[in-house]
Structure formats: C-alpha cells, structure tokens
C-alpha cells in the first residue's frame, strides 16, 4: 500500500474523502424528497454512491447494504460491455441478477461522469421499485420457477443518450411495469445521479483529475490497511455456521441449508458458502452478491463502524460459492426472494463468528415477515401498492454492551423507515387498529433482544397479498438464537380473519386474495438475548414489568423477579 511517505498529501486526501461523502448524502436527500413510492420517500429503501472509472466504490451513504455493496459487480459488467461507447449525459438502467445485481425490484441508474473528455467516475442511484413487471404485482411471485415469471429483466441499457431520453427504451420498460409511480421514481433516481455528477465535476474542476485519483487511491489503501489491522485482531482459524430457510414457496415443510465457513488468516477473511444446499425450485434463491453483501454487513458491525465505505473496505474479503446452490443459483432460476435470505445468511455468519468476536457480535435477529399489498383504492379508483415496511419490524439481536434495538427489523436493510400511520391510511385503503411493541417478545439475557411489534389492521378494499418472509412459528422456523447464555427470541405469527369470521393462518411465502373487511393480525418476534438472564439488572427488569413490556409471570420465571 501507499501511506506515509508517498507523494499524495494525506490532508488533501482526507478532505476529498469528506467531499465524496457529502455528495452522496446530497444525492440521497434529492431522491428521498422527490420520489413517489412509499418505498423510496418514506422508507428510504435506496442507496446513492460514487464509483471510480473501473467500478470500484469511492463513497456511498450508510443505507441498505444489500443494495449498495452489489453495485460494483454490476458496474464492472457495464463498463466491460460498453467500453468506449459512453458519453457525457448517458444514463444506463439495470436490474438483471444474472449480470451482477442483487434483486430485480432494485432498479439502478448509472451515470458516467466525464471530465475533460475522459470517463472519470460514476454516479449511481439504486432503489426498490413498487413493481417491476412479472407474474405478480409488487415484484414478489412465490409461484415463479424461473426469472421470466417474476420480473422484467433489464440488462444494461441506455435510458438516456448524451442527455436525451430514449423514449423507445422508456416505453419498452414501462409498458412492462404496472404502476405509474415506478416511472416517477425512476425520474427521481435519474435526478439524484445528475446531482452527483454536477457536484463531482465541481470537485474535478477545482482539484484536477490527477489529484483526485491519487487521493482516492490513497484513501482506499488506507482503508484497506485499517480493515486488515482490525481483521488481524480476530483469532485466525476456520469457523462454521449454519441457518435454515424454511418453506420455499412450493413446499411449506422444505428446509434449505445455508452454510458458511469463515476463514480468517493474516488480515484476510474468506467466506466459503459452498456447503450450502442446492438451489430451490422457486424464488427463494439469492444471487451471489447477496451473500457477499451480508458478509460485509456482518464484518462492518464487528469493526470500527466509522470506517470509510470505499473499495479498500472489501479488498481483504474473499468468497467461494458452489454454482447452482441456493446462494449462487444458475439461470434461469427465480430469485425474487433473494434479498430476504439476507437475514438467514447474516444469521449463519453470526453463528460462525459470534463466539470469536464476542464483544461486537449480536445474538440472533428477528427473521422478518412482510407483504406486498396491491389492489384498487375505492376512494380514488386508482391502483395502490403498499410495501409492508411497517410490519417487517422485529427485534434486533442483543450485543455485549446494549440491548437489541426494538422495532428495528431487517438486518439487510437497517436504515429502513416505517411509514407514518396517518400517511399510510391516507394513501392506502387500510384502517390501522394496533401498532405497538409486542410484550414478552424479547429474548431474555443480561442484554435482552429487541422487542417485536404487534400489528392489526383492517383492509377497506379487496386486496392481493404477496406474503414473503420467514420465521413463522406455525412452520416451526427456528427462533433467533441467544448468545453466551442469552435465551432465544420469539418467532412470528400471522392470522387473517375474514369478514365471515373464518380465520386463516397463511404460510410465509404465499399469495392470498382477501375481501374488504378482512383483519390482518401479525406478531413480529423479538431478537435473541446476550449473556445469562441471571446477570440482568433487577432495576431494568422491574422497569420493563412496570412498563408492561415484560409480564410478571415471565419476569418471575426467567429473571427471578419478585414484585
């Protein structure tokens, strides 16, 4: 590596690193505030980033790791494909999982940044779309057996050429997508990338390309050195961990193994997923980029979380996959659920490393369960689509120093924001009846797991539900595990009560059409505990009993709490 003693000015390098970060944040404000779908504007289910001419990361916002860390592989493919056929003002659209992306519904906009006639960098925005065509509205089709049944594939294609919208491409894409807001959201993504370009060009005008490149190289090298030195503090060795996917959409009793062997040696870390099971028949397959993103997420939690997010971060990482496996499926496999295996992959990695990096690991997180709802809103006679961010809020796993976060949810999407309930009722024909922490859901421990959430609402219009997730107690999914004597968290339950009083407990990956007046009742579980419950402070236990978060019965039985 370069470092002290090389000719780049270390102060200027730090300055330019800050500037890259500021630009990505500005891009994100633009996308967040101007997009239409609740997924982008309310839940912030998108990322923004800057990448170098080779496709390596310069900076990105702290956002959705499963989306962001999968940009470089796709971008490298784009660069290889287009070669010299790129010009200022071009915008490339992409989502194809078999050319580097993580999930079809996560649509990306790549804008090359030119300076003095030379391709210098890329400004990228990428977010979860409310629909991306395919067999089921909302992009999750549990009945798909191949990619063509679940989404419109968009291999790299120019949406703008030299600043001019290609109407033919635009029409081709949006003729295959159900909701007009998706096109509006793509406008917001293109705007965000354009902002990034404007701001980066200002930096290049000021400092010149050579200085800019040298600074970025310096920062990546220094970041790599920091990651390596942190990894050297982990004991060398090979550590195995497993988790199980329950219900593949075709067979509710199916169990698919996700296995990882983590090899740590001399500041390098390799994640070998080749022991994982064969690819599943339906959409419960994760493109390989998902597993690598989750490995980065897990390691970021175990090292200094303030480490810059650039190419140096992932240089010490290695990966092995078995082609045709559930974490590296071969075309034309369906993969719509792939991101949602992220929490199971994370679970396997934490199972492997939890006892190795004791002070910074977490116990098991809630396995999320969510839904995409679509239908026609009788109030406006317009189609609606709502993504179940609010119901996906389970408890996080506890860590050595802190209780797990309550109402947090997806480990592969930790920056997600819950819809505001008033806005939700205004936009979607639902009446919310209950949305509160779920008492007794936390896995006990010296540090308890995060609490899950109980959600009850009424459908005020006939609605199609594409339920997707895992962790259902009715399917006997494993509960989030405890660590170092902490106890396990709790699973999820879901019951639909139809207007005629009939109850139905759907599976974790299922399409259900419900009539108006149906009640949705979900208990999202809590995370696993850390350390023995006997060591938990009596004051904390008493406080939670007083607050109604812990029943007196459970407090007495597990914590020996006497009122």
């Amino acid at each position: 590596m370069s470092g002290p003693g090389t000719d780049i000015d270390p102060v200027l390098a730090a300055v330019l690193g800050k500037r890259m970060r500021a630009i990505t944040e500005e891009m994100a404000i633009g996308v967040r505030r101007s997009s239409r779908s609740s997924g982008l504007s309310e839940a912030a289910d998108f990322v923004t980033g800057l990448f170098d001419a080779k496709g390596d990361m310069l900076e990105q916002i702290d956002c959705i790791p499963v989306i962001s860390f999968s940009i470089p592989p796709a971008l490298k493919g784009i660069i290889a494909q287009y070669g010299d056929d790129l010009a200022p003002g071009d915008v490339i659209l992409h989502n194809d999982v078999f050319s580097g992306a993580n999930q079809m519904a996560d649509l990306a906009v790549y804008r090359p940044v030119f300076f003095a006639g030379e391709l210098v960098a890329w400004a990228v925005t990428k977010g979860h779309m409310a629909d991306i065509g395919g067999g089921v509205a909302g992009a999750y089709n549990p009945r798909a057996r191949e990619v063509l049944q679940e989404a419109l594939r968009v291999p790299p294609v120019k949406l703008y050429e030299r600043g001019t919208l290609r109407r033919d491409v635009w029409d081709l894409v949006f003729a295959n997508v159900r909701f007009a807001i998706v096109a509006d959201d793509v406008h917001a993504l293109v705007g965000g990338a354009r902002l990034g370009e404007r701001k980066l060009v200002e930096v290049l005008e000021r400092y010149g390309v050579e200085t800019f490149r040298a600074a970025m190289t310096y920062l990546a090298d220094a970041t790599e050195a920091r990651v390596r030195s942190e990894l050297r503090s982990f004991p060398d060795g090979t550590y195995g961990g497993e988790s199980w996917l329950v219900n593949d959409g075709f067979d509710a009793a199916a169990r698919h193994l996700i296995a990882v062997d983590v090899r740590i040696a001399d500041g390098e870390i390799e994640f070998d997923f080749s022991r994982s099971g064969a690819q599943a028949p339906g959409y419960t397959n994760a493109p390989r980029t998902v597993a690598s993103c989750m490995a980065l997420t897990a390691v970021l939690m175990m090292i200094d979380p303030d480490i810059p997010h650039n190419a140096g971060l992932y240089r010490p990482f290695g990966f092995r996959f078995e082609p045709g496996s559930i974490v590296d499926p071969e075309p034309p496999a369906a993969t719509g659920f792939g991101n949602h295996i992220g929490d199971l992959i994370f679970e396997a990695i934490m199972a492997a490393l939890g006892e190795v990096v004791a002070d910074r690991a977490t116990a098991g997180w809630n396995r999320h369960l969510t839904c995409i709802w679509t239908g026609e809103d009788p109030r406006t006679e317009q189609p609606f689509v709502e993504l179940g961010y609010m119901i996906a809020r389970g408890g996080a796993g506890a860590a050595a120093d802190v209780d797990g976060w309550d109402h947090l949810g997806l480990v592969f999407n930790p920056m997600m924001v819950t819809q505001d309930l008033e806005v939700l009722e205004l936009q979607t024909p639902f009446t919310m009846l209950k949305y509160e922490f779920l008492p007794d859901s936390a896995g006990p421990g010296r540090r308890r797991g995060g609490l899950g959430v109980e959600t009850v609402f009424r459908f005020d219009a006939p609605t199609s539900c594409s339920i997707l997730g895992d962790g259902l107690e009715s399917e006997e999914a494993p509960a989030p595990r405890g660590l170092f004597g902490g106890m396990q968290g709790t699973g999820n339950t879901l019951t639909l009560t139809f207007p005629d009083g009939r109850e139905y407990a759907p599976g974790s990956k299922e399409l259900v059409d419900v009539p108006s007046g149906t009640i949705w009742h979900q208990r999202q579980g809590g995370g696993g505990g850390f350390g023995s419950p006997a060591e938990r402070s009596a004051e904390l236990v008493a406080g939670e009993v007083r607050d109604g978060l812990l029943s007196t019965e459970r407090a007495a039985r597990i914590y020996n709490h006497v009122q």
Partner: protein
Amino acid sequence: MSYRIGIDVGGTFTDFLVVDDDGATSTYKTLSTPEDPSVGVLDGLGQMAADREIGLEQFVAQVDRVVHGTTVATNAVLTNDGAKVGLLTTEGFRDFLHMRRGAKERPFDNKMPYPKPLVERYLVRGVRERTDYRGEVTTELDAAGLSEELDYLREQGVEALAICFMHSYANAANEEAAAAVTRAALPDAYLSVSSELLPQIRLYDRISTTALNSYVGPIIRNYLDKLIERLRGIGFGGVLLIMKSNGGVTTPEHAQAVAVNTVLSGPASAPVAGAQYAGVHGYQDSLTVDMGGTSFDVAMIKDGEPALVNEGKIGPWNLAIPVVDIVTIGAGGGSIASVDNGILSVGPASAGADPGPACYGFGGDRPTVTDADLVLGYLDPDYFLGGTMQLDKERSEAVISEQIAAPLGISVHEAAAGIYDLINVNMAVGVREVTVRRGYDPRDFPLLCAGGAGPIHAGMIALELEVPVAIVPSESSIFCAAGMLMSDLKHDFVRTYKVELDGADLDRLRAAFAEMVEEGRRTLEEEHVDVDRIRRQQTADLRYLGQNNELSIPLPEEVLASGDLGALVAAFHRRHDELFGYSTPEIGLELVNLRVACVGATEKPGMVEQPYDGEDPGAAFKRERSVYMRNRGWLEVPVYDGHLLRHGNLISGAAIVEQRNTTILVLPEFDLVCDRNGSFVTYLRDHADAGPSRYVAAGATAGSGT
C-alpha cells in the same frame, strides 16, 4: 438614559449586550448557573450597575427591554431531564413516539444504545377514540375510560400531560373533548394538545412535538416565573421578551404556553444579527458561522431574513415546527485530532472545556484545534482571553508531535497546519450543506463570523468555499445576545388542506389564510404590537402528485387574489430542479399545507457610526509575530489591537488582529478594513467586492480622510 439588554444563557457563559439610547454598546460575560440560570442573569445586571456607578435598582429602572434566550429547554431534552409527562394517545398506538419510525442513525454500530424514552411507557396511556383519515369521528371519546387513566396518571404524579390522537389535524373534536376532561381532572398540570399546537399530518411528527412541549413546558414555566419574580424584585418594569427557535421573540406568557418553541432558541438569534451586520453593507444574503469549543453552527440569511426549515430535530426527536435552519457539526476549538493508519482526522470528539486542549494545562493530553492554532502562532499564549489565561505552547507541540507528526512522518508545524486545514474543511462542508441543500452557491454569501474561535478559521473556510468576503462584528463573541435585540415578535401557523392544486377551492384557501392571519393578529395584539407594525408571509407546501415530501413556496396575497396560480406553479418547478436535479412539468401539483408567519416588528437599537479615521492602522500596531502557513512556511506578520482600530483603517494580509475574546487571522490573500460600525470586513484582494470603499462611511473615500 434608558437601556436595552440582550441576554444569552449558554452552557458555560451567560452573554450580555447592553445598548443605550445613543446606540452605544457594552458587553458582559458571567459564568452560567445551571441550577438556577436567573442567578447568573442577576450577576450580570449587578456588574452593569456597578460599571455605571449606580445602584442595581436604579439601573434596572432604566432598562426598558430585556430580550432573553435560554438553553434551559434544550438542555432538559439533551440530558433526559425534562418533566414527568403523561401522554394520551389513541388506543393501539402507545409506542409510536418511542419507535421513531424505526430510525437507527448508526446502522452498523453494535454499541449504540436504544434512545431513552421521552415519556416512560407506563405513563403513555391509550384512550378509546378514533377519527379517520377524512376527519370523521368513527369512535366517540370514551370519557369514562379517559377519567380512569387520568386518575392513574395523577397517582403517578405527572407534572404535565400531552394529548395526541390519530388524524386530529383533520378533526380536533375528540382531542378537544379529551382536553376538557383533562383540564377538569388535573387543572394544575401543564397540558399540550396536538391539534392546537400543530394541526398538521404525520402522527410521529405531531406526537413528538406535542410530547416535547409538555416535557419542557413545566421547566420553562417555572424558570420564567422565577426570572420574572427576580426581575420584578429588583424593580424591573420594562418589557421582557423570550427568544424562539424560529428567530423571532415572544412574550413570556406565550413562551410558557408553547414552550417547545424555545427548544432550539439558543443559536436562533445568530442569523438575525447576521442579517443586520451584513445588511449595512448591502448584502441581503449571507451566512453566519459560529465556532465555539465543541460545535460549529451555520445558518443562512436569504433576502435579509434567516432561512427557516419546517421541521427540526433535537436529540433523537423530531420537532415539526419552523426553526431557524442551523446545521451544527462537531467542530470547535476543542476538537481532537488523531491519526489512524495514515488517515488524519479531526473531531467530532472534543476535549470540551474540561480537560480542554492540552495547552490549557488542565490535564488534556490529546491534540486539539486550539493547540494547532497556538503552535502555528495564530494565538498568543500570553494574550488568551485578554491575557487572563496562560497557554502552554510546549505542551501543544509535544502532543501534536507525538500523536500526529510522528505517525504521519511530517514536522510538528506541518502536522499542526494539517489539523488546521482539516477542521476548516469539516466546517466548510457544514457551510456547503446549508447552502447547497437549498440550491444556493456559497460563493454568493459573505460569511459573518461569530464565536471566539471563529475568526482564526473564517478566512480559510472562505478560501475553501471561494467566498470573497468575511465579516467579523466587533461583538462577535456575544453575537447571539446582539441578535436577540434585533429580533421581531414572530408566530407561525399551519393548516393542512390536501387537494390537487388544479381543483383547489380558492375561497377555502383564502379563508384558511385569513383565519391564520387573524390568529396571528390577535396574538400580536396581546403582545401590544400595533397593527401597522405587523407583516406576514404566506406559503404553500406543494409537491408533485404522488410525492410524499413538499417544498414551501411563497404564495403572496396578490397572487391568491388574482386567482391565477401560474406563478406559484412555475416557482415550484424551478425550485424542484435546483434541489433534486430534475422537474416534470407534465405532472400536476398537490397542495398539502398552508402556512402563515406573522411578524410584529420591534424597535431595533441603532448602530453607532464612528467618524472616518483614514486608512492608516498604525496607532493599533502592537508588534510582529511569526506564524506558520502551509505552502508558505514561517512568515513575520504584524499584530494589531482590534480595540484600537478605527473606521476606515485598512490592513493588508497576512496580519493578525487581536481582541480580548477574539483573534482574527487575515490570510495573505485578504485585506481587512474596519467599517463604520466597528466591524472588521475582510475580503479577497482580487475580487469584485474588494476595496474598502463599500465598507466605510458614505462620502469617506479611501485615503481621503475626513
């Protein structure tokens, strides 16, 4: 003689600015007394009386206005030390406040604890009632159930109550009914009702703001009661006004009723002062930068007014009221520098005041920005705080050498210069954020520098941003107190009217505006403002159909009266492209909220104009001193006594101007001129705004004398 006094109670110091009839000013600083801040206020008044060699009561009798800003509410929130609040919500949604919509600000940090609740869960009580999204009551209030909850909360000893029900912005009937029951049951408790405070959509924003109001309400109420009692006790018969987070002032009665308005009031007066100091030189747009020991606050002034945002944040909580748009970053004199694997970083960790920078000799052993400033020669170890505190330069050199220079393989002076540069860049990023996120170019905004540490760094921040002018007011170290005396009475109102703009009922719009204007007029009348001193600004929150976030666009009365909203629509498209990189004129607009800001102008103190004294600063020359600058090495530069510089005196950089509480570093690229009010204006020598003529009195031309 009569006096006006601005009082800014900060965490460490309480600052005072006294202005007399002739506009002559004097400044005071006393140590703050957090257990009862009014004690520190009285100390200051005592000093003022003593300086004038009259008795306290005799002095106070001549004071006709006190404007007071306080961090009492801010600190209560930031230290989890507010009132014991009972929160009444719609049954089923008890936790929506604490959930904060699921935000985790540092997603990868496994050591970050979940935020402590603002209201303990056992004091959050669900009430059976419901209003739907149309504003129709679908479940009447269960008054009997509410009474039981109130009995419980009384037993628990709550000091304050907050009521926030679903969709109450659309119909307040259930909240009003609940408020009536609550007032009867707990007549002495402080009460906040969301539909009165903030009739605006978004449950979390409304519940958070309402709960915050009750959390700080009793504290502000008691504090102001005590302050008023003390002031009356010494014979004060003038007007007391309280600074609000929106850059305006209000009466103590209103501050007590809507206490949440004071939560971010501390720094809110800085841009008010900035507008004044920049305005005298014809700048309608400017930026205030206030660098203290641990934080750096930036605010923007646009068209002569502090820029506002419609929502703020305090600690982890949302504050959905208009507040002065201040960006605070962790950068100050106490910011700590470190090197990790070859990457130098400075801040946000701070050595604060205790142990403070290494050079204070209070036990600090980490290199800070102040240490770097000292090593570079920008600070004089013998003239810190006017020489009342001795700085230890050798300690600064030792910690920088060991912790920064050695690991980077550079000299101690290069290391100090690196710290200086990096903190300046951090601050420049904050300045950029304030401007660019609103679509403005920082190069068009002169900097107004406040805070003791600011003027050493302002020049480099200006260079970094290519800002051509930086102004250091003579009262820079008590800038906020000065701003308080310049603030107007100001009240904000909002109504939600969600409709496609094309189909908006203009009469309903007019009626909503008229209702808010009337409410504003009534409030200002209660504050004894004459009708002819009231002005107002009307804005509409607009968005493209289907968007979830709005832009506030001015909607002047004339436009509304004309019935043609074309200009409003065009302004929206333009702003959208500036901020978000695109606009889509083919898509229709939706109106969400209507807003009115009502301002009652107060009498401003005049500024004293000094006679022109010519360009020669020779009378203020103290000595020469060596300073170190990156890419230039050691330079011998003249040092001037700022207290002796006079109107028109002109200094060419590099130079240093020292005052008791402030040091100005004039970089080689800049000149400095003392303006007619005694402020110091520095400007890039090769820029269009260069030359002293703009900044000195009319008729006085450079070199001519008077």
